[in-house]
């Protein structure tokens, strides 16, 4: 199945993109998606923390299954305000 992936803040520097599409196996979860993304982007492999994740604009966890999800966003620690 096809997903849109969004990156923010320093993750856009590490991946060189703000958004991309990826084909992922049915039944995959967020952690498996991350592994696939880390294969594409060397910058993600050196990260020393695990970013927050949102599925269709709602906070999710790394074990959230991706069935029915259209957009997954990886969110570095926020710094608004």
């Amino acid at each position, binding site marked *: 199945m096809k997903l849109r992936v969004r990156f923010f*803040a320093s993750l856009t520097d590490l991946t060189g993109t703000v958004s991309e599409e990826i084909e992922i196996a049915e039944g995959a979860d967020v952690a498996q998606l*991350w592994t696939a993304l880390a294969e594409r982007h060397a910058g993600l492999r050196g990260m*020393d923390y*695990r970013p927050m994740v949102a599925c269709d604009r*709602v906070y999710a966890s790394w074990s959230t299954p991706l069935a029915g999800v259209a957009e997954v966003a990886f969110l570095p*620690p926020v710094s*608004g*305000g």
Partner: protein
Amino acid sequence: MIRLQTAPIETAELIAAVRGDGDGAVALFLGTVRNLNRERRVLYLEYQSYEGMAESELERIVHEATGKFTISRVAVIHRTGRVEIGEASVGIAVSAPHRAPALEACRFVIDTLKCTVPIWKREHFEGGAVWIEGPEGPPPPGS
């Protein structure tokens, strides 16, 4: 009223959005851009947000505040894009019949916003720029 905008924040608009004839108090908080951060001279900040999710997280916070404190209305405006030194990057107004919950809810909204709303700032200084990111979580799985 909850809004992300590139234009400067008008405090009169925030106050007008919350004020009611039954209210005895309005508390307002402005987060303003400092010219110094960790002893480095800052030129300006640039805010990036996750459009849609930032607004819905703010809605959730305002809903939580309204349940937690005896308040009437809450308005939040957050800037996106470039924000100059001295300008407000965020403005929060809370009205209430009495002063204590207005001030306490204002504090709750800004504290929670800083922890959960998907907005990031990039600090621009002489010779470069860095993303400012909050305290980090645990390492990614398999790392």
